[in-house]
């Protein structure tokens, strides 16, 4: 590693972690979301409750799980419930403050596709599909999205609405009878984005250290809006970085 002493992916994970508090109850996906949630738990948010859709409530893994149902999650959880109970009492019941989602394709309004590239019935690439995402997107208090930027991933128009963000913007959620906030944060490897309060279009509010606005635009398929007061993301602290590296080092998946 050269330059700043951390990778863009580490910056992404740490920036996402910072958005979480000890009062949050998070529905955690695998990958960057799981890393971010556990970094938060092990640094500034020790009271955070992590819920994995396999049924583990209050998991406190020492090792980052490869899947959402690794044994480590159950062994460290406050309790482990059945999958129907998870989706009925805990997610649909409105007990989750933050849901984390990733995207294969994302549009400017936080709508997500992880289902197909191309036509649904004749796909160019069949992706895994939604899993828990369609209801995570509507039942969690708010949704945080993490993804690496790319022209293929951040697109003008997604091929399939796996999970609903802000639709075509504005009050699209309310019109569908959805009472939760939807996507309120997008953290990429280059920047932090938040939705415009009116239009709900994601705009860059903070650039990661050393990243330019041009670099963000060059890896985003829509015309990027930048906040009037653009900040620079604080680099990962020594503790944040050490915590993340320790977690990864203990998680020997390959």
């Amino acid at each position, binding site marked *: 590693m050269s330059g700043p002493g951390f990778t863009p992916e580490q910056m992404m994970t740490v920036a996402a972690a910072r958005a979480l508090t000890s009062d949050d109850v998070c529905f955690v996906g695998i990958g960057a979301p799981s890393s971010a949630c556990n970094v938060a738990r092990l640094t500034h948010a020790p009271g955070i409750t992590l819920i994995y859709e396999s049924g583990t409530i209050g998991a406190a893994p020492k090792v980052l799980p490869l899947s959402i149902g690794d044994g480590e999650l159950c062994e460290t959880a406050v309790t482990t419930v059945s999958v129907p109970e998870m989706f*009925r009492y805990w997610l649909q019941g409105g007990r989750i403050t933050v849901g984390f989602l990733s995207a294969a394709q994302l549009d400017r309004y936080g709508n997500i596709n992880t289902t197909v590239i191309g036509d649904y019935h004749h796909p160019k690439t069949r992706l895994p599909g939604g899993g*828990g995402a369609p209801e995570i997107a509507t039942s969690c208090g708010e949704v945080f999205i993490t993804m690496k930027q790319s022209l293929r991933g951040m697109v003008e128009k997604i091929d399939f609405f796996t*999970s609903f963000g802000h639709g075509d913007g504005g009050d699209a959620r309310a019109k569908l009878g959805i009472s939760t906030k939807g996507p309120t944060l997008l953290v990429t490897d280059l920047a932090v984005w938040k939705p415009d309060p009116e239009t709900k279009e994601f705009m860059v509010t903070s650039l990661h250290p050393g990243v330019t606005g041009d670099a963000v635009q060059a890896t985003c398929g829509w015309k990027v809006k930048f906040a009037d007061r653009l900040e620079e993301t604080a680099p990962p602290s020594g503790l944040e970085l050490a915590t993340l590296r320790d977690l990864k080092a203990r998680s020997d998946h390959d």
Partner: protein
Amino acid sequence: MVKFCSLAEALAENLFDGDSVAFEGFTHLIPHAAAHEAIRQGRQELTLIRMTPDLVYDQMVGMGMAKKLIFSYLGNPGVGLLRRCRDAIENCHPRAVEIEEHSHAGMANAYEAGAAGLPLAVFRGYRGAGLTEVNPNIRSVTCPFTGETLAAVPALRPDVTFIHAQKANRKGDVLVEGIVGIQKEAVLAAKRAVVTVEEVVEDFADVHPNCCVLPQWTIRAIAVVPGGAHPSYAHGYYARDNATYLEWDHIAADRESFRAWMKIHVLDAKPEVFASRVGHLRRAA
């Protein structure tokens, strides 16, 4: 009345060509050994039901056994895509496969409704989701008290469900513990249920009264297959073999390497091989 028998016999007597079948397990306790026996016995024209199809359905689809898939997440958890399923859906190789796709909430509620003897599940879901446009089995009902429109999906009622569990007692009651997933519902929703277990114990006298226990009269057949969940895991017995999940991504990437692997590790193998596969994953006592 439940019957203790070999896996070959349990499968032969309970899974038939054309059946709808669920091999369930949510990351934990996936019935790999039972699925491999189905592959060896060459069942055809199956409707494969599962929330998280993963490796076993990738294998069954790759072997051309499935006419339809009902699922909510068609991935290799934490790794990526299922390449044999992709080949079937994108290229109709080795055959075309019909798909019925739901969300996890949709599938979980549909199994719950099946276990509860209802024709449908009602929940708050699919709002703004594209699946409503491509799956005619996602409909709605209106709440007669509030006027709210809620999602409705038909109950899942497999002809037969296979699960893997930690243990049975001599009477045939079955204990599932740890991440219990959707297994109880999948068993109770099915017309027939077959369970592979790590071991048989005398009784469940030391089991907590609120544990997930399936009484013997809810199960048709039990076969003892130690390691039968590998590369998935059995809480209290052996750990998940994450390396094998990562390796599968390479095996399944190519039609030839897939078939070669299947011949050695499934077609020419026996259920007994599973015990040796988990040897290095058992915890120190």
